[in-house]
């Protein structure tokens, strides 16, 4: 990729204002919304892909698509659900890629060093167990469980984010939770 000249940067800088008009919200509103949602979205992307660097890229892509969507939202919760839906779609797109491009969910977790604080070692071990168990679930089950128990989303919010019917969430969540609980209790099964 070629370097940009000063005139090109100036031109782009001037164009920023024009391009901003095409977005679904103004910059100040976006800043507030971003501060409130970026961390949970990044955590979701990071855990669902198992790749922190990829999560960085997908975070930018999620907000870009959100801004470009141009859709109006009834309230902040609706806006947030829509954001998670975009993030979920991006994660699904990533999963469809050939396996060589993907990393396993357990890959980013550092090996346990028993010399460090016992609590840290235990926590890392638990995280590794969770990542291994999550890896054995279906992608949709993973998304659903994360949204429900890590993100604290309601059934309606999960349905909105995953594009499912609200009525089916209860049963699907029950099954996914049962599987994960069994895997966590007996990691060998």
């Amino acid at each position: 990729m070629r370097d940009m000249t000063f005139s090109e940067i100036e031109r782009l800088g001037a164009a920023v204002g024009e391009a901003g008009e095409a977005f679904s919200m103004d910059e100040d509103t976006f800043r507030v919304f971003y501060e409130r949602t970026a961390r949970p979205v990044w955590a979701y992307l990071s855990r669902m892909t198992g790749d922190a660097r990829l999560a960085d890229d997908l975070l930018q892509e999620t907000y870009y698509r959100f801004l470009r969507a141009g859709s109006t939202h009834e309230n902040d919760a609706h806006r947030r659900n829509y954001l998670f839906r975009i993030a979920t779609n991006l994660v699904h797109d990533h999963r469809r890629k050939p396996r060589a491009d993907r990393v396993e969910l357990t890959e980013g977790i550092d090996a346990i060093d028993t010399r460090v604080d016992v609590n840290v070692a235990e926590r890392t071990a638990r995280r590794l167990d969770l990542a291994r168990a999550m890896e054995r679930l279906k992608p949709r089950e993973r998304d659903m469980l994360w949204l429900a128990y890590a993100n604290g989303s309601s059934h309606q919010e999960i349905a909105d984010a995953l594009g499912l019917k609200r009525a089916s969430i209860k049963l699907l969540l029950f099954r996914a939770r049962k599987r994960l609980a069994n895997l966590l209790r007996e990691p060998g099964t």
Partner: protein
Amino acid sequence: MIGPRQTRGPRRARLRGGVERSGPAVGSRRQATNVECAREQDIVDAIASGRWPRACDPSLEAHAAACEICRDVVTVAVALREDEFIARHEVSAARLPSAGLVWWRATIRARAEATRVAERPLTVAQGIAGACAVGLACGLAGVAWQSVQRFQRVGEMIAGLDASTLQLASASAVILQRALPLVLGLGACLLIAPLAIYFVLSDD
């Protein structure tokens, strides 16, 4: 003899083997469809707020120990909450780009995309114009070549005339010989000029 209704009940129950019940069940239908517990949300809230297990209602803890659904909820919710906490800690280590940076990148990209979309018809038009120019030049070159051949035939006819007109014939042949490079040059210009214009414009 066992009727169909009698055999269907247990079979259904086997098919729904994964579905557990919680609390006292009234009938077999309720047993099969009960996939949640009334206190499930209280447990989730207690875990989310960090009150679990020490700072929450002791009856809730006792219930979780007895209820299979709530036991699963505790196992899963505690693990995922802890992982979410770690993930948030990871992201706080200067990983997350600022809102301003994300906004700026998005606007730059939006602008670049808008430019690309706007330029697309122009590029198509330039391509069509280039193709037309090449076609026209080829056509002109063909016409020029035919006229050259016609001039040669005229020259041959003149050469075949009697001596009185021989001087005129030789003069015409000379003219034709001199005109040939001119015609070829004109044809070449017609061929190259549109291409040159196209490439100059497409560089912009």
